């Protein structure tokens, strides 16, 4: 009974993906007849060839990768440095900084003021608009701070004895000791940027800068063709369209699906560190 309920949960989670993969790999005839449910019929990779050859999608893919790589590095560096400083209770104005940071979880400037301010900084239609406005996540900062305050004092003190400053201690001693939590936060930031649709919608007008999520939305939700000819194959436009859309969804989700199981053992641990002290 218990096992079958949980098996149902697993099925409900995975079936949509299985179905999309099966349809996107099947030949038009079978998709048209609607007899694809679990595995592909008339296996072929044509949809994936079309998706990967499409100039808009490959452009967006490269953009997304750029945003993720630059943004994650930037965010991880800033937040871990900030969190390390916050974990030092003796730091000047520590409480004030903490209060200022936590307050933003409960009150915010809202969509329009944020948009106008970002615009006034000149970030509209630049790569930075995908990186700076979401550079630090307060949750991630708290998780990191809690982790750093749990590190044994002796280790850091040995560094101090050797004449390291706080900055030296942070880079040479604390960061190498924190690989698990850094991997977790790295994953959170990377996924956040990979999935970020909101910033792109607000701050990007230039189609050459669009990340994958925007192109995917334009393709799927607005039914726009991505490239000439991309949707004009096969007999029934609509059905073929469907497998093309599924293929695009799979292509844009695959990196997350692939990396995620390997990092899982890190992130459950990492998240719990944060939830202990909140």
């Amino acid at each position, binding site marked *: 009974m218990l096992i079958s309920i*949980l098996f149902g949960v697993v099925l409900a989670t995975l079936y949509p993906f299985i179905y999309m993969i099966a349809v996107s790999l099947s030949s038009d005839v079978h998709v048209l007849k609607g007899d694809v449910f679990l595995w592909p019929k008339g296996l072929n990779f044509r949809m994936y060839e079309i998706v990967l050859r499409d100039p808009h999608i490959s452009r967006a893919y490269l953009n997304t990768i750029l945003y993720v790589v630059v943004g994650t590095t930037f965010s991880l560096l800033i937040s871990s440095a900030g969190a390390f400083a916050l974990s030092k209770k003796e730091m000047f104005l520590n409480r004030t900084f903490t209060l200022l940071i936590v307050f933003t979880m409960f009150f915010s400037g809202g969509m329009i003021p944020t948009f106008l301010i970002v615009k006034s900084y000149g970030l509209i239609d630049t790569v930075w608009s995908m990186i700076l406005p979401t550079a630090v996540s307060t949750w991630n900062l708290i998780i990191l701070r809690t982790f750093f305050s749990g590190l044994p004092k002796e280790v850091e003190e040995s560094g101090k004895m050797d004449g390291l400053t706080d900055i030296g201690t942070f880079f040479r001693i604390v960061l190498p000791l924190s690989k698990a939590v850094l991997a977790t936060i790295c994953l959170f930031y990377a996924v956040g940027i990979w999935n970020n649709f909101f910033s792109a919608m607000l701050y990007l007008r230039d189609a050459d800068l669009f990340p994958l999520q925007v192109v995917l939305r334009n393709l799927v939700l607005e039914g726009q063709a991505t490239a000439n000819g991309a949707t004009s194959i096969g007999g029934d436009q609509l059905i073929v369209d469907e497998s093309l859309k599924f293929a695009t969804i799979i292509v844009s989700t695959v990196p997350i699906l692939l990396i995620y199981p390997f990092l899982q053992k890190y992130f459950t641990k990492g998240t719990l560190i944060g939830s202990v002290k909140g």
Partner: protein
Amino acid sequence: MKTTFTPDIAALDELARRPRKPWRVSLNRSKYLLLLILPTMLYYVLFKYVPMFGLVISFKDYNLFKGIWASPWVGLKYYKMFFESPDFYVLIRNTFLLGFYKLLFGFAAPIILALLLNEVKNAFFKRFVQTVSYLPHFISNVVVASMVLLFLSPSSGVVNEFIQWLGFEPINFMMEAEMFRSIYVISDIWQNAGWETIIYLAALTAVDPQLYESAKIDGAGRFKQLLYVTLPGIAPAIVIVLILNVGSVMDIGFEKVFLLYNPSTFETADILSTYVYRTGLQRGNYSYGTAIDLFTSVINLAFIVTANWISRKTSETSLW
């Protein structure tokens, strides 16, 4: 700009009572730490606090060319406009109901799932279910919304194929205003229920195994153990999550509603943030939109403070 300085009496008192190193020493000692925190604080000031000051444009007639500070003051004009608008009631109702249903159905799902997982004895199977159920949390809203739209499509969606196979007429789900909330809440549970079990599973591991032993000796079966040992054990975690969820009832993510709604479902789907985007940002009514932004922020703050206050009065758990 004028700055005012209010002395912190308590802090001064403390300083007077015990001999302390002057703040210059503390500042000097912290100089490297302050350097490390500088980029973080710069981020919060530039992207969180400056926009908060930007909220003043809701009391002004914002003009793109004059900028925020030079635009003329108009007092509460835009607030009156919003409160008197026929959209006001609909937006409040939609935002509240969507948040309320999300809370009602979305809150129990991860608790039940965590309790079920806790009963699983096979460690491998447990891990497998966990891994799989966390997965949707990492899928983007765009992908989830795309999946919903494609699966529910009246012409080619798999759900309608099934409905037709059963011999019924296909349903145009996304065009039916009364379907929107259910679709939103169900897809939300699919996305988040697994991930939200993490906190409960952590609380469950902290329950003392001896309690189960003594419950067994007292003749409690599995269900009674659940009722009298497990649930009280995770009650603090449940309360914390409940406070957070009640506090964010009106704070529904913009993205998914925006991606799922369309003019034919505005009647139930249009919420405060999507309305701000459409009328404020897209049509350039910046001051009007900002008035609604500030109104929403105040409501959200009031909700979280009230939820925390009630919880502190009725139980011993609270956020602060």
